[in-house]
């Protein structure tokens, strides 16, 4: 099942779309998002009530960046990876909502 075809012997690995650029962009984006989140809590630039949802959204954006670009979850052949992470996240979301709203 693991036969390497003959032409694979000749050719050099071709670098696909997987260039350095998107990864560096993700890194810079992560740094910026992190700094914004730290700033938003350190100096009360936005009203205190909005800070929590704001930084949580920043975290979700950053996580999505890293999952999709760094972990290649956006690429073909990752359908079940997506199903796995999305389903896991959905279970977590329901859990957190229940814990926040129904505990006494």
């Amino acid at each position, binding site marked *: 099942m693991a036969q390497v075809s003959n032409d694979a012997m000749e050719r050099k690995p071709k670098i696909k779309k997987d260039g350095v650029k998107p990864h560096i962009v993700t890194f810079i984006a992560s740094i910026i998002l992190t700094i914004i989140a730290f700033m938003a809590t350190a100096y009360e630039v936005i009203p205190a009530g909005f800070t929590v949802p704001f930084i949580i959204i920043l975290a979700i954006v950053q996580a999505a960046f890293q999952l999709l670009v760094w972990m290649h979850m956006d690429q073909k052949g990752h359908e*079940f990876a997506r199903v796995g992470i999305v*389903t*896991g996240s*959905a279970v977590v979301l329901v859990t957190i909502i*229940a814990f926040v709203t129904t*505990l*006494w």
Partner: protein
Amino acid sequence: MSDHTSHAPNRSGLWDWLTTVDHKKIGILYLIAGGFFFILGGVEAMLIRLQLIYPEAKFVAAGTFNELITMHGTTMIFLAVMPVIFGLMNAIVPLQIGARDVAFPFVNALGFWLAALGGLLLNTSWFLGGAPDVGWTAYATLSSNHKFSTLGTDFYVLGLQIAGLGTLIGGINFLVTIINMRAPGMTFMRMPLFTWSSFVTSALILFAFPALTVGLVFLMFDRIFGANFFNPDAGGNIVIWEHIFWIFGHPEVYILILPAFGIISEVVSTFSKKRLFGYSSMVFATILIGFLGFMVWAHHMFTTGLGPIANTLFGIATMLIAVPTGIKIFNWLLTLWGGHIRFTTANLFAVGFIPTFTIGGMTGVMLAVPPADYQYHDSYFVVAHFHYVIVGGLVFGLFAGLYYWWPKMFGKLLNETLGKWHFWTFFIGFHLTFFPQHFLGLMGMPRRVFTYLPGQNLEMGNLISSIGVIGMALGSIIFAINMVVAAKSKKAAGNDPWDARTLEWAIPSPAPEYNFAQTPLVRGLDALWTEKMAGNKGMTPAEPLGSIHMPSPSFLPFLMSLGLFVAGYGFIYAGQWGTYIVAIAGIAFTLLCMLLRSLYDDHGYHIEPDEIEEKGVKA
């Protein structure tokens, strides 16, 4: 072809079973472990019913009764039916999808040994100061505070932690097997229903068991390290345990029942000589049940006081599950309708399953109504409900599956006459035991009490219920005898004793270690039946006869599990005589085994075509 044309390692007897990575042998190991724990749980059940046979009986003490109900529930759910389900999944799923093996044979073996040794650890508590006595749900603070519970609860925590780990990796193994290892032409929408339900069950395991892991960690930290998760005095919250337990616990119910749905679908279709009615709606219903299974856990907590909105939402979500379940029940009935029905034992269990499970489902909908649930809660009505679902549903399904696939697993048919005796004694015994419990509950008998007073109209129901146990015990004994009779029988079952429809019946019984000499080409739903209808003798191969690569057996899965087993005792007796060293040593030993596994690549061995032909590839 390769520099590793080593031959099958010569291993036999116990050593073979301790080191096997063959999914069919692991399936048998699961059945043995499940059967052993089924006997333990069954004996516990008989003692419970003995104690409740008449008012103020004194067969067992109140404390012992608490241990019995806790261990009966825990053993039956985690250690008896789960292993039997995994046993059937192991034995059958790879065959149904035309695979030579599972995706991770080594992990598969590890999953078994963790589950078995975790169960053993839990049950050694009987001899080491008493079994857990806080109910199988182990609600805090009863379970989290040493003032209220014994060392038994530590056995519960560590035993389930280890067994749960095994189940989790077993689930991942089956997900990957079904996604990646299907034979050519075996598309998702051609997969037999048992494979489909195993797939969804494995997905539920993947997303439900980590919650249990976390819950047990909290409980362990509270008990051993003095953490405050469930300690209200220090700001802890006991409702968190209830939530976490049921976030795991309710999907667990579907983890149990879905494979039974799959088995019934196969059996009913085979013995009606008809294609399963509404195949795609069955698949859809299975997925939908799995999905909704995560949205309903709080219906176990209606009386906790979560508020009317939460109760309403969870109540409605629960009732919604009746829709896909109803689809399934009607599909089974319509499969039987107009079919050429053969009432073999497997089919008897399947046909017995349908009304019994429907009753369990109906009482489930009753319980889903929050205001009504305040009346039913913690009464025998609930006990009756979940036994109708788990015994009348799941256990009937498992018996159907065992009678159906026994020839594929062992090459011998179970005796049909004994089988019918088994069915009728078990079926009647079951209804005698649990039907009266509905009324006992409605009359106000609370569950988990070790006795009741005379003169409250509870005598008759309890007496009938206890008598019914005889039927179930008799049925189980007949089944055990049947296994021996089958083993001694000289008559081989042949490839396809039932004139069945799916791929596993295209190969010899029992299946050879490589399953398929040539990977089959699947050309339709009910792969074998498609070929039969086309006038072909067997499956069309998708590849020429060639050398087959097999994974080497390994002792490491057992050793890894043993490391955690020993570490479990270290934690249970934590702080007593410096036992942390035992815990650390056990975990270190397991990690060392993992390192060895990583360092030494398994090159496996090959079975050559001439060897395959010797064994006969008539199929």
